């Protein structure tokens, strides 16, 4: 298995606080990899550090064989890696039309065939041409998340970093977005790294997962282990019990 993404001893600190403490991770080419862990354990920080939105002071990051450090990422990186954030309200500029939002990355990366690409991107996420000139504040949460995904896919990346892409959405829209992501992954042979606090979602979407706690990866297991309850970290067990719902006690 060749690695799409390889992280060694990554450290991210805010002032004195270690948000990531020597994290190691390998995600294979075409793999769908899940990250779970308690709030504040560093899941978003990890994706942000890969994307160059947070700086890592120590360790190495290799993406498709190229090494990156700190916060600097070249254009090639963004052609390879794109990120979709949790919050469908905050992640798109509200005063821009869908057209502008999709055009921007194409212009930055010097694409000339913008027309067919925008049409195809909208089509791929199940939104018709009628949405093209709407402002993002005129869209529902699910529609915005579709646009965010279209914007990430339009540069034809190889790796998608997904930070809780459906946790702000209701069950029916979540199912639509998860189906859309799976379809895109199949069609384009994408690699996913997906953060979610819903073990049901992770087990549905991913082949392996890492469990994080206090800035560290405490365990990496195949998703099948959730079904068979074959894992060692206590925290994984707690997560599993918790995912079964509230118990008065």
């Amino acid at each position, binding site marked *: 298995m060749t690695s799409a993404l390889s992280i060694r001893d990554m450290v991210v600190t*805010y002032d004195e*606080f270690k948000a990531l403490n020597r994290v190691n991770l390998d995600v294979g080419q075409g793999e769908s990899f899940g990250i*779970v*862990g*308690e*709030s*504040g*354990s560093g899941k*978003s920080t990890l994706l942000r550090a890969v994307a160059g939105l947070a700086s890592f002071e120590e360790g190495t990051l290799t993406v498709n064989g190229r090494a990156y450090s700190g916060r600097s990422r070249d254009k090639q990186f963004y052609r390879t890696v794109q990120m979709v954030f*949790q*919050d469908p*309200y*905050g992640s798109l500029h509200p005063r821009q039309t869908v057209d502008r939002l999709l055009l921007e990355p194409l212009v930055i990366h010097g694409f000339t065939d913008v027309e067919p690409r925008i049409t195809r991107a909208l089509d791929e996420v199940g939104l018709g041409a009628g949405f093209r000139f709407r402002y993002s504040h005129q869209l*529902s*949460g*699910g529609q915005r998340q579709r646009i965010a995904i279209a914007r990430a896919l339009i540069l034809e990346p190889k790796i998608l970093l997904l930070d*809780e892409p459906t*946790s*702000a*959405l*209701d*069950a*029916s*829209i*979540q*199912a*639509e977005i*998860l*189906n859309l992501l*799976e*379809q895109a992954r199949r069609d384009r042979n994408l690699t996913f790294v997906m953060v979610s*606090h*819903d*073990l*049901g*979602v992770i*087990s*549905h*979407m991913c082949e392996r997962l890492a469990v994080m706690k206090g800035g560290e990866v405490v365990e990496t297991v195949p998703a099948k282990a*959730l*079904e068979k309850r074959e894992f060692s970290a206590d*925290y994984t067990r*707690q*997560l*599993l019990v*918790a*995912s*079964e*719902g*509230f*118990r*008065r006690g």
Partner: protein
Amino acid sequence: MRTSGAPLLTVEDLRVTFPTRTGEVQAVRGVSFSLGKERLGIVGESGSGKSQTGRAIMGLTPSHAKITARKLAFGGHDLLTMRKAERRGLRGRQVAMILQDPKYSLNPVMTIGRQIVETLKTHEKVSTSEAKQRALAMLEAVQIRDPQRVFDLYPHEVSGGMGQRAMIAMMLVCGPDLLIADEPTSALDVTVQLEVLGILDKLVSERGMGLIFISHDLRLVSSFCDRVLVMYAGRIVEELPSADLANAQHPYTRGLLNCLPTIGSDRHPLPVLDRKPEWAL
């Protein structure tokens, strides 16, 4: 568990309408329910009117919207005729709402700790040092690991789940009689989610608080609440004791339950809702 005596809250035929350039948007269309010292869940898809129902009860509807109701009463107060200043006095102290998006409800230029302290001081006569102690205790109660550190952080410096808990701490610090929690745990990982629910649960059972729990998470609601209202297109389409959620009759409720991914079930693609126009009648 239904409680006896006069209900804490009575809502009869509540309607919330927004005028827009393209005509009226009827966000809430005739919602009725009453609430005792219990946990009432409201579920339904995005845009079904859950938040607008909660906001109308709180008096937080945008001013250009029109609200009507046959009755809207909290304790002995008629909320429809109450003066604005009185309503404000009620808010925060006796009724509180945890808003859906903590990022928009926390003040970005004030530290988390300061915001909780200020909330407490607007509603109670307390010294700054006592307010600080209570704020720290509240942050600890909502399972913030390092309350001292988080007390001095600004909202953009905390994770999604920490911001949500800070918001919860702010709403609970005055000990309200009625709490409306709008998706209060959607950004929390499941273990913390359960801890926060445990806190809300205690407030209901020990302090007799009434709780309206708004969520799109059906599994969570059915395990936590006493009964559930299912909303679709501004109306309540079904009301159920939580334990009976699995036997829901309305095709919408059944559809929602069916599209959840679960561990071990291998359904690719997931079933999606086939919305019927008659559901919205």
